[in-house]
């Protein structure tokens, strides 16, 4: 195992997004802050409380989730896709980097960016609605697993995409609907059937509820079940990415 090579790729990925912090960190921070201000304060005035938690506080875990999910995904997907477009993928393929090194190099980079944006979003939310952290271990676990899952999914999208249009396919047509229907701005418990049952098939619901459990101490879903489902998702996505990298799918001619 080429540990130095993997670490080099990871550090390179982090340095890459730090070279353009306005685009990679500040811009998503501004948009999630706007969500907070607009949804929290406009809707918060009417909704007041959800499951006994003030609405401005209720949406914080979901917004942190959005920050991590979008940025972890985008970092891994765009970075790998750009190496294909620029031709620098040759450097990766010709180097003594196996599927494991490439996988965890990109995942690490995506997680760092996702968590950086997520934590900054949380920082902004704390300024508005105070600091709440009921279960620190569960919070850290869910923060990490969200970052991990979306980094792997981003990597898969980056491997698969051959055109700019395709790289935007997942964020627009898969992630956006699933995140907005994932209980970020509402409690899935409030949905009637069949929407409640359908929502339980959306893995993002477990991520948001898991973070909600960790930060606010309340969740309408079992955090143990959620973490189990997410661990399975992480495992499946990792196995798929590993297989794609190992076979050279859409990377090698």
């Amino acid at each position, binding site marked *: 195992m080429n540990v130095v090579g993997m670490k080099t790729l990871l550090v390179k990925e982090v340095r890459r997004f730090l070279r353009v912090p306005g685009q990679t960190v500040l811009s998503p921070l501004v948009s999630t802050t706007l969500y907070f201000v607009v949804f929290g304060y406009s809707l918060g005035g009417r909704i007041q409380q959800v499951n006994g938690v003030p609405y401005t506080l209720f949406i914080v875990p979901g917004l942190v989730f959005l920050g991590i999910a979008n940025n972890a995904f985008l970092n891994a997907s765009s970075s790998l896709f750009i190496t294909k477009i620029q031709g*620098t993928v*040759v*450097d990766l393929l*010709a180097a*003594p980097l196996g599927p494991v090194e490439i996988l965890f190099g990109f995942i690490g980079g995506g997680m760092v960016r996702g968590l950086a944006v997520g934590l900054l979003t949380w920082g902004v939310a704390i300024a508005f609605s105070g600091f709440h952290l009921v279960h620190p271990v569960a919070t850290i676990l869910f923060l990490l697993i969200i970052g991990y899952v979306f980094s792997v999914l981003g990597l898969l999208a980056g491997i698969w995409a051959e055109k700019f249009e395709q790289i935007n396919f997942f964020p627009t047509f898969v992630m956006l609907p699933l995140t907005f229907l994932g209980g970020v701005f509402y409690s899935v418990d409030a949905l009637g059937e069949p929407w409640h049952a359908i929502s339980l098939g959306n893995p993002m619901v477990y991520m948001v509820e898991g973070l909600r459990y960790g930060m606010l101490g309340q969740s309408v879903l079992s955090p143990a079940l959620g973490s189990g489902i997410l661990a399975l998702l992480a495992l499946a996505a990792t196995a798929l990415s590993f297989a794609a990298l190992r076979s*050279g799918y859409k990377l090698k*001619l």
Partner: protein
Amino acid sequence: MPETVLEVRELVKRFGELTALDSVSLDIRTGEIFALLGPNGAGKTTLIGVVCGLVKKTSGTVKLFGIDLDRDPVTPRFQLGLVPQEINFDPFFTVAESLQIQLGYYGKPRDDARIAEVLTALNLQQKANATTRALSGGMKRRLLIAKALVHRPRLVFLDEPTAGVDVELRRDLWAYVRKLRSEGTTIILTTHYLEEAEELADRVGIINEGKLLLVEEKSALIRRLGERKLEVRFASPLSSLPEPVARAGASLLDGGLRLLYTERSGRPHAGEVLRMLYAAHLPVEDVETRRSRLEDVLLLVLRGNLPGEAISLARSGEAQG
């Protein structure tokens, strides 16, 4: 250290209907400069791509430093350097950072002294802190070469390394390639500049339509398939040539004022023909000879105008050792 750094056996690569590599077998010896020649689309870059992990083979085996790439595709690559044909660069990083990243990919720690050494060798030291985006085309090419060499590989692939670069860099690179070879590095070169192959290569391989037609020592190949043309001008026109000269295959042109003779395998040497002319006291005014270059031999092989011996050598694979 094994005698052979690269062993390719019965290598086939198909892209749909197109056979890009058609049962190619080739051995590359430690410490040699091997030039792989052929027209565009012949399969040169595909062959390099399979060895370097950029292209998936259809069948056949590739052993790098004695290790079968089917069993372990990663370990041998620590010793491999590649200058790809297409210029690529990561605009987020400077020249020195790009080399640092490359060192890391190959499992090496940060080594500023080595980076400075390579930058100096490729005349890039002034650009160490420039972003790669700001480099000219020639400088980007230099950076590609620096990236391929910074980790001190034992085998380097130079795929059209001097395409689109100025004469100065070409000469610099040739000197550097010779230096690398003197240090024991094995080099596989593809080039459109046959002068480059003629200047550098110990052996050449000629590939066309995915088939490796011939592999031979460069000088022996030129000697065997090449020609030497002898042209003699006379002070006064000759009505005929002495019998032995005519029998050797020389001919008179321009109303007897010029003689043309082509020396090739099996015919008398040009010097012998000249000696016969002087012996016959003919009014020789000017003598000119021209030996075939690699370019002539390449054209000969590609057009299929090989003497019988060369064809049998190529087909039997005996020339591939």
